[in-house]
């Protein structure tokens, strides 16, 4: 991470840039926010943390003027201002980057940056393309981004570049000065390298005197970036403290209301029977992988984004084609389709929850039991609704799912709880092999602990796990061994015991000298 630890620079301002106080919001009797206050100082990164459902999203929606608060006082540099519409938010100088990036994939980078504003023109009507592109390039250059051609369609870019486009677009909005940026889980879909670039940009904005509200579940980022942290719990202010006034354990306690759950000490258990064996495995994207996977083992798969982690997991799910080598499973040949994989006790939690995971309009039960319908069914393919509900209820309990009714649509659950439903789906058949593709992405601390507990329980029961994660700490905490990929090639297979994040990162980047220290 490149972020420096510099606090507010220059002469210390006398009053916060934006001060919220007495913010309350109820949804039909349910209290979402209760008397919350938040100060944003210029030249400061202010982290906002809290479990899913703690009120972060509501707070952001209120700030954006999308959801009117029941009660709120807003002061801009000491002066009372209204905040009840998106126009008010824009006038205050607030700018938002949401988790789901709003870019138009077919339009060029430059057009996306100018979206919603008149483009420079020639003869009063024709778009002045050279000037449009030059302006976009200038906006990107402010971030030290030079590798993006403003004329390429934005849809061809990676998530990190899209984030840069979005930020450039926010800065380019000329109507009101951009004073404060609200970044909602900006690194959820970014690689380490892309995150590092974003942190550099955030640092630049901070030095220019902007206030940044940084919403994240990632403890490492918050510890590295923030000058101040505010924690919400159950709609109330649980804690707000400047740098130096908080630590990891304190934040977790503030978020969960309980002390940090000590991770059970991992011991190097004797490996069980060989469950899968890869020898000289190669596909279109993977090259020369050789490893064994044992029962009762978590094999972590690490690497930069698109180093082949997902492709490797998908291979076990019956997708992709082998070019060379072999992949043998104890249960027989490699499955040829996801349907066959599930039938053979291989379960999968996908990376993209919304696109590949949940059926948002269908019930918790329907989402949970989908791969297990055949196992639950009566003789001529008749479904057995009561057995389905029993299965869903059992797993919802085991994973501590927060829900109202099992027949409520999954789309109405918080992100972390949707992820738990996907876990329930994977766990329901007591799978022999669990394929987890970044399973706690965008999931809060409490839900993460529940998911980790479920993974450990499965391993203790003799299951094997193939795990990828963009969170290195998670990878280290859960894995027995870690397979390191670079551009689809295997560059290492190391025991996780005794390895720390810095050591693992060094292996991923290929800095052999530092890896020796691990």
């Amino acid at each position, binding site marked *: 991470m490149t972020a420096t630890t510099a606090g507010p620079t220059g002469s210390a301002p006398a009053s916060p840039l934006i001060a919220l106080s007495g913010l309350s919001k109820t949804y039909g009797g349910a209290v979402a926010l209760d008397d919350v206050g938040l100060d944003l100082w210029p030249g400061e990164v202010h982290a906002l943390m809290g479990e899913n459902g703690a009120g972060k999203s509501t707070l952001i929606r209120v700030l954006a003027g999308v959801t009117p608060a029941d009660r709120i006082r807003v002061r801009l540099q000491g002066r009372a201002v209204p905040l009840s519409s998106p126009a008010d938010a824009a006038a205050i100088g607030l700018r938002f980057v949401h988790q789901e990036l709003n870019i138009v994939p077919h339009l060029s980078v430059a057009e996306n940056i100018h979206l919603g504003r008149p483009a420079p023109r020639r003869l009063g009507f024709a778009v002045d393309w050279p000037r449009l592109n030059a302006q976009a390039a200038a906006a990107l250059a402010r971030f030290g981004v030079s590798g993006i051609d403003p004329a390429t369609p934005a849809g061809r870019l990676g998530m990190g570049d899209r984030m840069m486009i979005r930020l450039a677009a926010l800065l380019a909005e000329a109507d009101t000065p951009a004073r404060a940026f609200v970044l909602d889980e900006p690194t959820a879909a970014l690689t380490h390298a892309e995150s590092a670039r974003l942190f550099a940009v955030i640092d630049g904005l901070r030095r220019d005197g902007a206030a940044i509200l940084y919403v994240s579940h990632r403890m490492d980022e918050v510890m590295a970036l923030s000058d101040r942290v505010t924690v919400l719990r159950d709609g109330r202010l649980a804690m707000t403290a400047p740098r130096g006034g908080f630590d990891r354990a304190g934040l977790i306690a503030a978020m969960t209301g309980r002390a940090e759950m000590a991770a059970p000490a991992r011991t190097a258990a004797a490996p069980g029977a060989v469950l899968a064996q890869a020898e000289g495995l190669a596909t279109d994207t993977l090259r020369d992988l050789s490893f064994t996977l044992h029962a009762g083992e978590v094999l972590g798969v690490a690497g930069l984004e698109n180093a082949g982690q997902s492709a490797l997991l998908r291979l076990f799910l019956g997708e992709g084609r082998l070019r060379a080598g072999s992949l043998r499973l104890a249960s027989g040949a490699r499955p040829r389709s996801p349907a066959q994989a*599930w039938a053979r006790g291989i379960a999968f939690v996908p990376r993209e929850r919304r696109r590949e*995971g949940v*059926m948002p309009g269908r019930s918790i039960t*329907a989402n949970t039991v989908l*791969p297990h319908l055949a196992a*639950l069914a009566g003789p*001529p393919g*008749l*479904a057995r609704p009561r057995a389905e509900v029993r299965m869903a209820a059992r797993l919802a309990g085991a994973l501590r799912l927060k829900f109202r009714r099992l027949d409520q*649509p999954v789309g109405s659950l918080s992100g972390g709880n949707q992820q738990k439903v996907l876990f329930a789906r994977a766990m329901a058949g007591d799978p022999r092999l669990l394929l987890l593709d970044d399973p706690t992405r965008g999931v809060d601390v409490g839900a993460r602990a529940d998911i980790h507990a479920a993974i450990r329980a499965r391993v203790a029961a003799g299951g094997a796990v193939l795990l990828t994660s963009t969170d290195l700490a998670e990878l280290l905490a859960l894995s027995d061994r870690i397979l390191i990929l670079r551009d689809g090639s295997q560059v290492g297979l190391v025991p996780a015991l005794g390895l720390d994040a810095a050591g693992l990162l060094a292996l991923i980047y290929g800095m052999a000298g530092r890896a020796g220290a691990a």
Partner: protein
Amino acid sequence: MIWLRRYGTLAGLAAIVLFFSVMLPETFLTLRNLGNIGQQVSMLAVVAFAMTVVMVMGDFDLSVGAMASLSGVVAAVLFVHGWPVPLALAAALAVGVIGGILNGVLVAVVGILPFVATLGTLTMFGGAASLVSDGRTIFGRDIPEAFSGFAKGTVPGLGLPALTAVALAVLALVWVLLEQTTWGRRLYAIGGNAEAARLAGVRVIRLRIQAFALTGLGAAAAGLMYAARVASANPTQGNGLMLDAIAAVFLGMTMNEEGAPRVLATLVGVLILAVLDNGLTQMSVDSYVREILVGAIILAAVGMAGLGGLARR
């Protein structure tokens, strides 16, 4: 608002029935007229029930009307060639299954959007119907009594028109398939998120082909019912069924909170269209005005359901 969303369509049906019983006290709520409605509606009902199967997956089948016409003329031409009735009917139904499989392969394997794929097969089936029949209407002595007599018959002991009985049987079959089997559960899963369903072990391609085949079979059955009822077959007589069937499914979808098609809800949609048609005809409302009214009612129902969704946000 939620009440309106859930039961508004059902209340609408009740209101329409009430309106016509007041306006037509002598003729509307009579056993004879109800039997009439039951018979008139049975072809549309079968197509709409079959259409529900693909719409559960979020797909469409625009070719059902053309398929109904095609199966009618196929049976009639085979009658002309002296085929026995059961064999000719089986062949016509097989044409429906094959056409449905073609639709399913185009959508699920080739990956053409259902709207475009079935628009293409609609044209093909229509052309095939004209080709098979030489563009003529087949009627009179060419249609065997054993075939057309069925449509005039009733279920012994119940007085239920035979065509209505067929529609009810199809309703029961589709209801069991969609609501009571794992097959139906998987179909709804595909409608919920096809990629997620595939990754969760649902054989999406196979199921989609099966579903389209079933819809094709339903369309062919409806075509045969139509041909039996009018004791003739021409290459365009089923074409009108398609839009009404889709409208009926949409009307039904307004009754469901998640907006998923349910076959019993489709039945309500079918009944609304049938009662409107019957009542307005009896009131001698001009048929063009009738079309405008029916279209407006569909838009009002779907629009109101949309507003309900808006209010919940």
